[in-house]
């Protein structure tokens, strides 16, 4: 009788643990920390600084979500993932957000049951070659050995581009960016291909960045953005609107420097008031966020332009131009829904 009860109790315990699913926001609040899945190391996007703290564009986005939900951008713990393990890690609950330059594609969105909440960086696949090779265009690459970072959309784009141009190549697939860099430097391959942003990041970490160049051809569309698990719409909305709040910040001229003073007064532009919590924003409570959510994001992390410039812009070794990653009014692709 006793064993039977014990057995029943264990079974019930196991079932209970499996079936009770609190909302993601409640989990994060109860833990007091946001778990964020990032790259194993890509300068400008996610890389440890000299003090061992993770910094970068993707890291700052994690911080922004922590600022919005917990009011403190430092309350994030990071888990790294390779291109291969990232979706498994997200699905297994090792993080609430996958913020790791992940390309939004149909099959990933639909077949893998992930939710892509938006685009944080418009990218495309490019090729990097040593200048001394004398190659001026990707069309000259017939017969080349190409280092590829596997576990990405890169292999497919590469295969399609070379078939379409009736060229041959010798693929050398590599698991992580750092290993691929070593092979490229040792001359195992003539070309290194991945998203152009990744190429600039890789190049910036070389001893002589000027000996290498990114070819003009961009062979694919790579809209990169944060990903969350399917099925929690509230959480997906929080992450999506965090990104939009950063973009709205740039659009409305709210920066980390002036956000506190703008939040304290009644602005002429009522959209600023609504974003910063001066005027009510209908439905904010449904997201479970407090009125100062956007103030926290912009004051602690910055608006989109600030985050971009700090991590990737002209003042950094990467020197990436904004290009498509500007607001619509400046000729870029960001056109965000109004905050009302």
């Amino acid at each position, binding site marked *: 009788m006793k064993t039977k009860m014990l057995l029943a109790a264990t079974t019930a315990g196991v079932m209970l643990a499996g079936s009770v699913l609190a909302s993601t926001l409640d989990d994060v609040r109860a833990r007091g920390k946001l778990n964020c899945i990032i790259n194993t190391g890509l300068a400008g996007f996610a890389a440890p600084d000299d003090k061992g703290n993770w910094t970068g564009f993707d890291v700052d986005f994690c911080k922004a979500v922590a600022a919005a939900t917990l009011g403190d951008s430092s309350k994030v713990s990071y888990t790294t993932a390779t291109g291969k393990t990232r979706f498994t890690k997200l699905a297994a609950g090792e993080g609430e957000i996958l913020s790791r330059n992940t390309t939004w594609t149909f*099959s990933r969105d639909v*077949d893998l049951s992930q939710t892509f909440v938006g685009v944080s960086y418009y990218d495309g696949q490019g090729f990097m070659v040593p200048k001394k090779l004398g190659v001026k265009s990707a069309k000259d690459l017939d017969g*080349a050995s190409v280092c590829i970072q596997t576990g990405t959309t890169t*292999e497919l784009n590469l295969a399609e581009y070379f078939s379409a141009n009736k060229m041959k190549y010798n*693929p050398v*697939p*590599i698991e992580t960016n750092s290993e691929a860099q070593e092979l490229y430097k*040792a001359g*195992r391959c003539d070309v290194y291909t991945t998203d152009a942003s990744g190429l600039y990041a890789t190049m910036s970490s070389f001893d002589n960045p000027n000996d290498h160049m990114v070819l003009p051809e961009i062979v694919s569309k790579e809209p990169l953005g944060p990903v969350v698990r399917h099925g929690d719409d509230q959480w997906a909305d929080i992450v999506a609107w965090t990104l939009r709040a950063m973009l709205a910040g740039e659009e409305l001229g709210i920066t980390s420097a002036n956000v506190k003073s703008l939040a304290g007064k009644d602005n002429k532009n009522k959209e600023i008031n609504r974003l910063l919590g001066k005027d009510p924003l209908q439905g904010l409570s449904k997201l479970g966020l407090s009125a100062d959510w956007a103030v926290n994001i912009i004051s602690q992390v910055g608006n989109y332009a600030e985050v971009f410039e700090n991590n990737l812009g002209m003042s950094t070794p990467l020197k990436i131009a904004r290009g498509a990653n500007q607001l619509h009014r400046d000729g870029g692709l960001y056109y965000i829904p109004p905050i009302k």
Partner: protein
Amino acid sequence: MTYLHNIWRNEKSREIIIQIFVLLCIGWLLSWLISNVDANFKALGKDISFEFLFIPAGYDINQYLIDYNNRDSHLRAGIVGLLNTGLVAFFGIILATFLGVTIGIIRLSKNWLASKIAYWYVEFTRNVPILLHILLWHGIIINTLPHPKKAINFADVSFLSNRGFYIPKPLTENGIELVYLFFVIGIIFSILFFKYAKKKQDLTGVQYPVFWINLSVIITLPLIAFFLSGMPISLEIPVLKGFNFRGGMYMSPELAALTFALGIYTAAFIAEIVRAGILAVDKGQKEAAESIGLRPSKVMNLVILPQARRVIIPPLTSQYLNLTKNSSLAIAIGYMDLVATLGGISLNQTGREMETMVIVMLIYLSVSLSISAFMNWYNNRVKLVGR
């Protein structure tokens, strides 16, 4: 009650009861695991489906033993990967066996220096993780060998560079059938001659140099046919064109590094197994063989090794299995084996981690079991028959 009591007291029935209980526990655990996976997959909105195996893979593979291009299915990409695994395991096993047996014998040599060198080889190699061996060899090959434009040139037909070792590729033309035919005849002759020579030796004690005669027959016959039919083989010589060599056959740096690393690492274990096997043969056997005047090489080949083999084969089998399974570390240097194709890129492109992993595991399991079955068969042939 006393009846039940007696069942528990009876040793035999008690054993059965315990076994049934343990079996039930294992069954419960398994069914719980499966239902848990099922429930979690449902919760994530995922299903289990193997349809992805038949859609085009879309990626290219740099080494294929059967025809492959990026429009072929994931299944075919997996088979290409499996064959690459087989290829590196095959080369690795040959290298490991050859090196291991040699070093195991040297280790027992009376020559102090030779014995110590073998000792340090074994101690160093087997105490460094295999992954480091692989990375080391790959690093050495791609960093020390020259770029294709400055490749080491062997008589303008073979080239060694950090993109691989290129050799001419034989292309067959009309009339090649005669060469094949003579080759088969040579093989058949060799088998018959071997049997004849053995019989003769058993009856009269006369020995023929069987090995050399057979070797020259197998080489000479096809060679005669080759010239008779007007030299129907031409060579495709690799030439430097653009970035790389084109044409010919080549061994990639990844395949070479993996073969060396797996072979050299496993050889250290095999050397120890061989040493133990030889030491297990009673030294009276060696003394007896020497006393009838056999040369040291004959003592080793005819008396010691055949007896040591019985001790060596079972642990040797497990080293072959280890080597084959260790080849899955190929992914570290970008060699496209089964784990890199089906368990790597296909997994990524399709997102079917459960399905691909199950297939890859089943394939490794069946490969290992086949090697094991073959070695067991061989072991049964050579083991001491009890009388």
